[in-house]
């Protein structure tokens, strides 16, 4: 076995490193600081800023630590008077193209206190009001290296600041051309939106023909903004919020992938969201702040008095809710819940309906959206593969999956697989983000995807070619050759009126080719809503509501016999959690949400609830992983987590079994019905039963596109302005 360990000395300390590591990596691993501006551990070395120069005994020059591999017996010095001089000179040269009054201003020390020069200088000339002030890596480097006396005159580029794209501004007058953004776009996200244009002193980071990022194919994942060491790329919403006070790790609920994220909080406000490692999509990176920190969030309970909604205290609101609910017959109550809520909320909601109101009429939104496809969805979820099967796939088939915006996290995985040699096939009626990269793009007529897929499954099943279209035959041939096929079913495919045919074909195809299937659904907690039993046809744990044995067992746990499945009469009380009331209807509506009603909508009671960034709880992603939500900030005003509101009402109605003190209490009860339910668990979804009754009448699929970007029943574009610019 070859010896892979190398011994070297850095600053007099003997150090062991692995062969192939760079000096910088070895130093970092041993806690030795070498200044650098362009290097990031996640990116390939670049060697452009030159600040990491080191002295190596026996070497005539000063190589950069980030591009020099370790060698046996090397003696490295990272901090000598000669290096300090050279670094200071390098920094001065870098700063000759970077306005630096934030460093040189004589009034800097009094700035925070007296603000004598506040924004006297324009933002671009870099006075203390540079949006990156206090978070800028150049400031830190200057502190470490020192500038010396003589600064070079600044060569101001005088290019216009680019404001036209949503979410972030670009001021290339501040750019030091470290290339982090170009590299992160190209080598981590494979989007290739950013490039160096021109050369020499005219080099700038930009796009083809000076297009906006939107035109240039950007997915707005924000990775470039995250890695920018200067104020060149800054998030619009967070621009003047300064340094966050704390970071809380939580989970994004804006789609079913459940990416981990860091919520940045200052005072009692979420001011930003960043990926923990890897990626976030545009919704998770730029959508959350405006959504949860919006000033129009509901902050106090309201009750309709004389035709107008008036703010009331919680006690009054609970009393009013109890009055409405206790006069409501069991057949006249219906509850609708959003699948963006945490599982604890959904569990308590269905228990509320089944125990307090003695009805099974609790429906999470996906059932309305997917209708007859629900059973197919459950069957696919039961077999859902973990996302990392993409890493081992040799062929990937994507069904109506557009990974440009909402699923851009997957795009990086798919393109990395393709670069590794996996074949990428896509079936999509329109031009989409994968059509450039796909090895084969089958383009059925709009609305004919299910048909195309059904013929494909038929073709794969029979050895004889038949008289199918050439494209289809070619694709079938390719798929037959795949050993390790992964099929991804895009969220849009689920809205088709014939989604049941489509999902059946997927199942058949997966069976024939022994493929893994992944279904990145649009809801944050679709699986949680199924496991919690937030559907008339499903009980907690995922068994069928028609199963009398299960009903008895759950009834024993709850100390109350469960109602039998009964058809819904015309409801007289409609309890909506994270769902919009429909325009018409005679029912009395209790509207529990984070945001105000839309114009023209009516509710008798409005109860303010907490957003996902304000609760402790769990969601279950499409792989079956139980992911934690952590409270980053308190809810606005008097708003409460949804389960707490329901428990208060139940307690006021003297129904036992709703005295949870925390989300953990609810988790403990759920764990008795959902095997292994606890944060961090990877659940088997085998207990889910495809017990959904087909809807009557067949549902209208026209709102599919809108449904795609919803949170708590609202299109995200209502509050997140930038999203309006992204024509889906």
């Amino acid at each position, binding site marked *: 076995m070859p010896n892979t360990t190398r011994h070297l000395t850095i600053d007099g300390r003997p150090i062991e490193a692995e062969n192939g590591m760079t000096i910088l990596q070895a130093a970092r691993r041993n806690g030795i600081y070498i200044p650098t501006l362009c290097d990031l551990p996640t990116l390939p070395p670049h060697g452009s800023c030159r600040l990491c120069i080191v002295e190596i005994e026996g070497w005539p020059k000063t190589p950069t630590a980030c591009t020099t591999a370790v060698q046996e017996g090397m003696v490295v010095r990272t901090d000598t008077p000669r290096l300090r001089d050279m670094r200071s000179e390098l920094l001065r040269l870098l700063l000759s193209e970077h306005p630096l009054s934030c460093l040189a201003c004589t009034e800097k020390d009094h700035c925070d206190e007296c603000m004598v020069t506040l924004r006297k200088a324009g933002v671009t000339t870099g006075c203390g009001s540079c949006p990156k002030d206090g978070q800028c890596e150049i400031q830190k480097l200057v502190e470490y290296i020192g500038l010396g006396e003589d600064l070079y005159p600044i060569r101001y580029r005088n290019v216009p600041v680019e404001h036209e794209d949503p979410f972030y501004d670009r001021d290339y007058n501040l750019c030091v051309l470290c290339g982090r953004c170009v590299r992160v776009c190209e080598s981590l996200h494979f989007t290739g939106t950013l490039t*160096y*244009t021109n050369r020499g002193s005219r080099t700038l980071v930009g796009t*083809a023909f000076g297009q906006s990022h939107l035109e240039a194919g950007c997915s707005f994942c924000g990775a470039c903004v995250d890695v920018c060491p200067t104020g060149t790329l800054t998030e619009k919403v967070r621009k003047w919020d300064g340094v966050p006070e704390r970071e809380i790790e939580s989970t994004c609920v804006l789609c079913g992938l459940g990416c981990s994220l860091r919520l940045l909080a200052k005072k009692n406000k979420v001011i930003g969201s960043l990926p923990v490692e890897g990626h976030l999509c545009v919704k998770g990176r730029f959508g959350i702040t405006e959504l949860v920190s919006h000033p129009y969030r509901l902050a106090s309970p309201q009750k309709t008095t004389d035709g107008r909604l008036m703010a009331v205290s919680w006690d009054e609101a609970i009393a009013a809710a109890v009055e409405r609910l206790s006069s409501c017959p069991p057949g006249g109550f219906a509850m609708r819940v959003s699948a963006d809520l945490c599982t604890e909320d959904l569990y308590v909601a269905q228990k509320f309906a089944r125990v307090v109101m003695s009805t099974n009429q609790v429906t999470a939104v996906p059932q309305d959206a997917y209708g007859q496809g629900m059973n197919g969805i459950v069957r696919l979820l039961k077999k859902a593969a973990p996302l990392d099967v993409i890493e081992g796939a040799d062929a990937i088939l994507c069904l109506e999956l557009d990974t440009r915006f909402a699923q851009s996290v997957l795009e990086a995985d798919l393109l990395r697989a393709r670069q590794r040699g996996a074949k990428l096939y896509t079936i999509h009626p329109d031009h989409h983000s994968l059509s450039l990269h796909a090895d084969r793009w089958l383009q059925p007529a709009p609305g004919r995807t299910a048909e195309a897929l059904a013929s494909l499954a038929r073709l794969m099943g029979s050895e004889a070619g038949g008289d199918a279209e050439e494209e289809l035959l070619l694709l079938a041939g390719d798929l037959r050759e795949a050993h390790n096929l992964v099929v991804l079913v895009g969220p849009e495919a689920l809205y088709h009126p014939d989604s049941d045919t489509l999902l059946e074909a997927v199942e058949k195809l997966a069976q024939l080719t022994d493929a893994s299937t992944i279904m990145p659904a649009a809801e944050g907690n679709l699986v949680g809503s199924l496991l919690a039993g937030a559907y008339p046809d499903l009980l907690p744990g995922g068994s069928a509501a028609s199963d009398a044995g299960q009903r008895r067992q759950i009834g024993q746990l709850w100390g109350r016999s469960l109602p039998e499945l009964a058809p819904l009469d015309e409801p007289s009380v409609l309890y909506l959690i994270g769902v919009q009331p429909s325009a018409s209807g005679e029912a009395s509506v209790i509207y529990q949400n984070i945001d105000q009603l839309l114009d023209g909508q009516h509710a008798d009671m409005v109860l303010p609830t907490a957003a996902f960034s304000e609760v402790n709880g769990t969601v279950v992603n499409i792989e079956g992983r139980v992911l934690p939500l952590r409270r980053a900030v308190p809810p606005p005003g008097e708003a409460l987590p949804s389960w707490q509101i329901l428990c208060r009402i139940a307690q006021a109605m003297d129904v036992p079994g709703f005295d949870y003190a925390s989300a953990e209490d609810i988790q403990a009860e759920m764990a008795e019905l959902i095997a292994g339910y606890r944060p961090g668990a990877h659940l088997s979804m085998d207990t889910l039963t495809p017990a959904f009754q087909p809807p009557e009448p067949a549902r209208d699929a026209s709102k599919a596109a809108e449904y795609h970007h919803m949170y708590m029943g609202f299109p995200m574009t209502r509050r997140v302005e930038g999203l309006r610019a992204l024509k889906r």
Partner: protein
Amino acid sequence: MYKDGYKSVFENYSGAQDNLISLLQHFQKQSGYISQECVQEVARFLKISENHIYGVASFYSQFTFQKPGKNHIKVCLGTACHVQDGQLLANEIRDLLGIQSGQVTADGFFDYQEVACLGCCAQAPVVEINGQIYARMTTTKLMKKLSEYE
């Protein structure tokens, strides 16, 4: 699949990413510039982003993104021409055509470039119009010459 005029060219290439520069050279020679459409088609063929192609092409001075004018004017500002007041000729043309070096008039009739040396210093200052060298130019002679093209 590909737009007219591109498919026949692409047939001679494998589609590997290192085809990029020779493809760009081909189209630069064929149309005198790299159009936006050309970048789009090459991007589709090589499966790389348009931005990446633009980055490569803008690095090399052999590629231009500007459709050339019908007539090409070059003014030499090399050492000899500089000493002989070539700058006056350059100023004259800029004023007359209302464009800077590297630009094309709005009607696409002239393009104009200031170059370092045309290699005939003995005849400085020189101006080149459509490949023809005009020696010992003065502003009067230049005006007269250009009026022949109007």
